[in-house]
């Protein structure tokens, strides 16, 4: 195998396997830094030895074993510096547990032990005692195997700031007594919602409205979907976990159709359905159904159901707006917000006409709650345009334009203004 091929394999493996290895070593050593550094060293060792000796049968297991040995080395070296023996007892315990991490642990023989480690790590990284941006960074770093510079670029944060954020978060986990465990049942709803929020935020950062480098953003969406799949494997009986994965898949399915060859934004109703990823649509749709059968609806399932209705238009090109409006109505009860009301108003406009929708949108506008939200003004502008009220539409489009920082969206709004006013 050529070094280039090995390099690619190791890169891919790092994304997929480093989270597992780190999770296991954290459980055993109780030390984030030590675990991460040992795993990183194992990957460097892979790059050095695999081109010559060939790739081992189970590369993931090789990584965990090598990382375990590196961690053991470091602990023993550290131990040699110590004269007093107060903590030797704990040391012996760690040595014993590290030695017990068998290469087989990452293989199919003992999947549960390792999966438990990853689940523990997810819940620890997303603990509500950590600041929200620290949860995101830590999850991407430890479970996603993204590097600090990659995360910094994705969130447009200077690298030292992000590095500092990670160090502080790890220190807080250690010093504040944040437990490394899956929370007990009575804490699970709150904690799970924080985990889902972190994953969805990563997805939206990649998919959504804020600016950033296209390639890295693509990385974020696939990383979020990968984490979503991990969580579905680990918690298959939690409908909101299925709902979140479904939601991400059903949106990502339309990625290629969202922007045209010139890089211009294409509205959902005008998208070329041939560009939708049907495999993703099917998988997402099946997940929504599986989740809904559990009869514990929640915001992610409802949003996924809405996306599924949109994607169902793949069959005959027609969208069932009445059903979408009804689902938004349910969502407004499950998690009330003016943004949900706005979406409901838009769906009603599609079902019952722009005048009915505009009355609802105007009411939201009058409340002032969404005044800084570009999509409110863009939606209002669109309804005014359909009603032939061009001057008012242009004013609303201009307001939306002032508020958005996304290049693609800006050029879409400018195009509309140009069509209506000729400038």
């Amino acid at each position: 195998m050529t070094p280039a091929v090995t390099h690619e394999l190791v890169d891919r493996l790092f994304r997929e396997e480093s989270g597992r290895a780190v999770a296991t070593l954290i459980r055993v050593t109780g030390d984030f830094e030590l675990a991460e550094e040992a795993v990183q060293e194992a990957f460097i060792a892979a790059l050095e030895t695999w081109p010559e000796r060939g790739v081992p049968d189970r590369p993931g297991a090789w990584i965990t074993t090598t990382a375990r040995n590196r961690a053991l080395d470091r602990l023993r070296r550290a131990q040699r510096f110590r004269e007093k023996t107060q903590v030797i007892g704990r040391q012996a315990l760690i040595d014993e547990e590290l030695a017990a991490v068998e290469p087989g642990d990452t293989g199919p023989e003992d999947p549960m032990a390792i999966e438990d480690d990853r689940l523990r790590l997810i819940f620890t990284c997303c603990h509500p005692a950590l600041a929200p941006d620290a949860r995101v960074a830590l999850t991407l770093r430890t479970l996603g195997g993204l590097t600090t510079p990659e995360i910094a670029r994705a969130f447009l944060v200077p690298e030292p700031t992000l590095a500092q954020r990670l160090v502080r978060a790890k220190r807080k986990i250690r010093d504040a007594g944040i437990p490394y465990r899956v929370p007990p049942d009575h804490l699970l709803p709150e904690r799970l919602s924080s985990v889902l929020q972190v994953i969805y935020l990563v997805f939206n950062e990649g998919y959504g409205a804020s600016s950033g480098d296209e390639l890295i953003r693509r990385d974020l969406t696939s990383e979020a979907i990968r984490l979503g799949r991990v969580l579905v494997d680990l918690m298959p009986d939690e409908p909101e976990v299925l709902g979140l994965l479904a939601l991400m898949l059903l949106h990502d399915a339309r990625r290629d159709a969202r922007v045209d060859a010139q890089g211009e934004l294409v509205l959902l109703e005008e998208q070329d359905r041939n560009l939708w990823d049907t495999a993703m649509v099917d998988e997402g749709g099946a997940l929504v159904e599986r989740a809904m059968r559990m009869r514990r609806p929640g915001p992610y399932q409802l949003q996924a159901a809405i996306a599924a209705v949109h994607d169902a238009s793949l069959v005959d090109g027609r969208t069932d707006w009445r059903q979408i409006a009804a689902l938004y109505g349910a969502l407004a009860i499950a998690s009330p917000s003016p943004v949900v009301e706005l979406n409901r108003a838009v769906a009603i406009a599609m079902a019952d006409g722009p005048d009915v929708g505009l009355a609802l949108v105007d009411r939201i506008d009058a409340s002032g709650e969404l005044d800084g939200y570009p999509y409110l003004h863009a939606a209002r502008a669109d309804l005014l345009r359909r009603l032939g009220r061009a001057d008012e539409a242009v004013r609303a489009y201009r307001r939306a334009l002032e508020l958005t920082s996304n290049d693609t969206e800006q050029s879409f709004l400018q195009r509309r203004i140009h069509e209506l006013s000729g400038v």
Partner: protein
Amino acid sequence: MRFALLIYDEETANPNPAPPDPAVWGKVMEEYNAFTRAIKDAGVEAGGEALEPNTTATTIRIRDGQTVTTDGPYAETKEGLGGFYLIDCENLDEALAWAAKCPGSWYGTVEVRPVVDFSKYAPEAAGATAGA
């Protein structure tokens, strides 16, 4: 590990406190007594005191050998430190669960802080960190 539950409330920081309504006062005291009993029964209680309001505070600092004494608390804030509990828990989740049951978190705000465990700063433990 041990945690301090630091209770902040507006009454403590109020510069012109009105005499408390005996009925309200009695109810609040009963709630605090119940909480104290609960942590004692659970075997996690490790100390604690209520503090007189900010109006009684005196702050002292020594700079260049000069003693500067000031009337009032260290920081003038809307909410003042009105008291604290020390509890001994397995982890932060447990400490947060107790904090949520503390009346201070209904009437004001409870800050949960781990108490420093000096044994982890022993030279041998520091060696492990430096080597890692």
